């Protein structure tokens, strides 16, 4: 259950729209079911009242939309940003990807978003309605007469279980209470994989990546992947590639995808959220983040506008590429 309600956001959006502060609102639009919200541009209070929703399934990170929308739309855009979204917001500003002046950012608190797949794993398929009551979700299915009550904590999206921050790092206005940067265990899974033997790791990733259908959702949803033209789509790059013809190409795409956002990835988790095949792509990004934190000191992309990512920076004392493997032995 979110601490901030649809009504509060609606009132704020209507106010800013009516008083001319913004000319449109980037918000979550009503779907067919209670969980399938679509990012939507609302241009009037009426549209907002009819279509604006806010619930436990509003996970989409809006930051990336600002790149195109600010370039196209007239006037200011109101955007609601959850704490994790603000990091992407800042990172895009660091990379000069949109005009800050054209955005009115309202920071909103987030208690973590639910993962519909986890809900379905408990309730079964065939969801008729999902209600929210305190920290419980009440799920009605087509097959059960009684509603199933689920603790929201049980169905939190992976990225929300390992939420890195409830603190907003950018906004024009903040609604609700400001949170703190949280102590998360987000690197535990990476560490678990690191502890495996190379053979086990290879088998793990072979299995995960073999499911890839190269739909590019991970890339296209990623707020760091905002290239005008992706190398994988560009025949003149020499590495253009449209489908994973074999396991090499699966790996190539995902290694390079993660490498290209290394140091720029804010760990927002959109890649894994949108993957139709549930490949834990965020682990690749987190591996880079974890490594760079360990090698070069803590760095959180997007925490500050204009900060310099580890891969475009250096010190004369950096460790050697050959040393990255036996750090563990030295630390032990």
């Amino acid at each position, binding site marked *: 259950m979110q601490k901030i309600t649809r009504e509060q956001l609606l009132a704020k959006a209507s106010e800013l729209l009516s008083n001319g502060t913004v000319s449109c609102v980037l918000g979550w639009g009503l779907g067919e079911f209670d969980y399938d919200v679509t990012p939507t541009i609302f241009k009037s209070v009426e549209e907002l009242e009819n279509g604006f929703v806010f619930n436990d399934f509003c996970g989409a990170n809006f930051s990336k939309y600002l790149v195109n929308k600010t370039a196209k739309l007239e006037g200011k855009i109101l955007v609601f940003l959850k704490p994790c979204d603000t990091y992407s917001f800042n990172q895009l500003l660091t990379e000069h990807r949109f005009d800050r002046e054209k955005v009115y950012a309202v920071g909103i608190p987030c208690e973590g978003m639910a993962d519909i797949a986890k809900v379905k794993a408990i309730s079964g398929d065939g969801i008729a309605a999902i209600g929210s009551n305190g920290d419980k979700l009440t799920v009605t299915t087509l097959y059960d007469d009684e509603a199933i009550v689920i603790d929201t904590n049980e169905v939190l999206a992976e990225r929300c279980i390992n939420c890195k921050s409830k603190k907003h790092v950018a906004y024009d206005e903040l609604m609700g209470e400001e949170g703190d940067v949280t102590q998360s265990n987000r690197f535990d899974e*990476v560490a678990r*994989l*690191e502890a495996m033997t*190379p*053979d*086990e*790791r*290879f*088998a*793990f*990733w*072979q299995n995960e990546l073999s499911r890839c259908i190269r739909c590019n959702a991970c890339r296209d949803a990623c707020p760091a992947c905002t290239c005008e033209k992706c*190398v994988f789509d560009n025949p003149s790059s020499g*590495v253009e590639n449209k489908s994973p*013809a*074999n396991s*090499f*190409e699966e*790996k*190539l795409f995902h*290694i*390079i995808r*993660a*490498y290209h956002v*290394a140091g720029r990835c804010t760990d927002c988790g959109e890649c894994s959220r949108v993957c139709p095949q549930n490949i834990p792509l965020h682990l*690749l990004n987190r*591996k*880079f983040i974890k*490594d*760079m934190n360990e*090698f*070069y000191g803590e760095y959180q992309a997007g925490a500050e506008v204009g900060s310099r990512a*580890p*891969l*475009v*920076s*250096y*010190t*004369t004392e*950096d*460790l*050697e*590429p*050959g*040393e*990255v*493997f036996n750090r563990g032995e030295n630390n032990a």
Partner: protein
Amino acid sequence: MQVNEYKPLIVAFCCNWCSYAGADLAGNNRLAYPADVKIIRVPCSCRVNPMFILRAFQRGADGVIICGCHPGDCHYTSGNYFTRRRMAALFSMLDFLGIEKERTRVEWVSAAEGAKFAATMNDFVQTVTALGENKRLEDLRCKK
């Protein structure tokens, strides 16, 4: 000499100013190393894109080594410092995917270190030979 003995294919990216000159010096001094090593000249080790490394593996390389000036001696002041960070990150990622870490290496070889160049190549070829064929980053279409 054994027949049909396994010969690895090694791609070595050498920076123009130090390592390529180091390789030349190895030649001047007639310091032998296996012919399995094929050198590609780049202006600076920082010119080496991770894509090139993966490309080499795809096309059948069994090992890729990047040689540059010693840290602090880069002809372009800072190029090899970036190489160091990029490759540290990349190699660690390859290891994370379970790809043998011994197949990739970065070595700093100065223009005066012909002996080091030859020794490095001998050692690297030996290491890769021991690993055998690159199976984990191969593209079967490119096999002969």
